[in-house]
């Protein structure tokens, strides 16, 4: 019960604070619209907002899927071959040394205003936490499990596939949870750098026209989407990792 009530209480508290600030702190509505005004905008512009939210959601989902696949693949390849690991690991670290934000305009220039540049941005944000967590998990297999498999005559491939991979799934899950919470950042940055639709595009436009209520409405939708995505991923992982001793 408290698992539902506590976050709900936090939300109501924040809403009350927001309402009180907007109502009593003498902040003009074009700087901070109240929760009521934002709710009204959400309703009156629902069609427009929902259409753009769907675009962003698609970018996030594709980015999360591809980023996870790519990240998991990198981790597996690095564990399977020490030679590849020696080349790939510095490359991966280098990819994180370049701020992803700085790449956004370049990606838009190369891939255009459409979906591809945003999905790639999301992939760039996501794959590293997935790779790092999964790679770490793959390397930290309980030594006894490996010994047992060796005495049973398992091949290297069988050990990687049937022991190390399975044992690394909880770590992979931890990476995926982080990825799910940062995925929207990639998509939104991509939209800010150049787009013709999506919540990031809506926010940028609304900001330029001082339509702060529309900006807030888009922000609320984005936050709701991020939370739902995280909860969905979390529920899926709990179901898949039901065997883990701490789940």
């Amino acid at each position, binding site marked *: 019960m408290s698992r539902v009530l506590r976050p709900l209480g936090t939300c109501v508290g924040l809403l009350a604070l927001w309402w009180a600030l907007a109502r009593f702190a003498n902040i003009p509505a074009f700087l901070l619209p109240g929760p009521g005004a934002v709710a009204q905008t959400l309703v009156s512009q629902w069609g427009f907002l929902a259409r753009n939210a769907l675009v962003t959601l698609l970018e996030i989902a594709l980015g999360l899927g591809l980023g996870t696949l790519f990240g998991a693949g990198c981790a597996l390849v690095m564990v399977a071959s020490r030679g590849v690991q020696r080349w790939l690991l510095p490359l991966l670290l280098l990819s994180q040394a370049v701020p992803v934000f700085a790449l956004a305009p370049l990606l838009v220039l190369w891939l255009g205003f459409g979906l591809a540049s945003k999905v790639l941005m999301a992939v760039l944000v996501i794959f590293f936490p997935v790779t790092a967590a999964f790679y770490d998990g793959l390397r930290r297999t309980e030594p006894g499990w490996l010994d047992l498999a060796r005495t049973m*005559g398992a091949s290297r491939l*069988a050990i990687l596939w049937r022991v190390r991979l399975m*044992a690394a799934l909880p770590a992979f899950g931890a990476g995926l949870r982080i990825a799910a919470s940062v995925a929207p950042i990639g998509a939104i940055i991509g939209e800010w750098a150049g787009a013709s639709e999506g919540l990031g595009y809506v926010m940028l436009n609304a900001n330029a026209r001082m339509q702060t209520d529309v900006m807030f409405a888009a922000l609320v939708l984005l936050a709701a989407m991020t939370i739902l995505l995280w909860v969905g991923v979390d529920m899926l992982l709990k179901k898949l990792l039901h*065997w883990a001793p701490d789940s």
Partner: protein
Amino acid sequence: MKQTPKPPGLHLHGLTLRYEGRPLFEGLALRVPAGRCVALLGASGVGKTSLLRIAAGLETPDAGVVEADDGQALAPRIAWMGQQDLLYPWARALENVTLGSRLRGQRPDHARAMALLEAVGLAGRERALPKELSGGMRQRVALARTLYEDRPVVLMDEPFSALDAITRAQMQTLAATLLAGRTMLLITHDPLEACRLGHSLHVMAGQPARLGPAITVPGTPPRAPDDEALLHTQAELLRALLAGQGA
């Protein structure tokens, strides 16, 4: 159930292992006669586990060989039981028992695995995950897994040390009964366990470690914990262990 192949004797000659330049043991020799159980006792850190790991092919000695007395390859005829149950947490009891088959890409023999689970007193628990089983039950699954491998040589590294006294005594009886007739090398720090399960015992002590003369216990394993000859041997062993410690 099919007949286990005739067990070979186990010969360890001239084993030397250095750890950080310091010899753990030098020129160590041990014979385990076919179908017999030899127990090796010693304080922790004396090199018992390393010796067993060398016998299991998990570690390479600096010098010396481990071979079967019939001249045939030893590795495919060895089953290994480690200090913990080493059940894979993602696999159900039945899948843990048939682990060897699945790791080698063979078809698991479910009927035989079910019969073994019944033999260790776990009928009806084949679908249980390791986290749903008690320590004693998990060790029973590990024993069924060892029996499923059906190897004529069994190496055991303090397999029951993590269990409480009563469960340990039950597991010793069960293991000795079900593994009877195989060539066994048992590492333990528990004199009672050595006396109950071993046809003969050696104390391993010193730096570098040496093996003391064989001590034989009258009667056939598993001996009753209150057997008079056993209690006598246990006292003798304890004296030898204390002498090895320089006490």
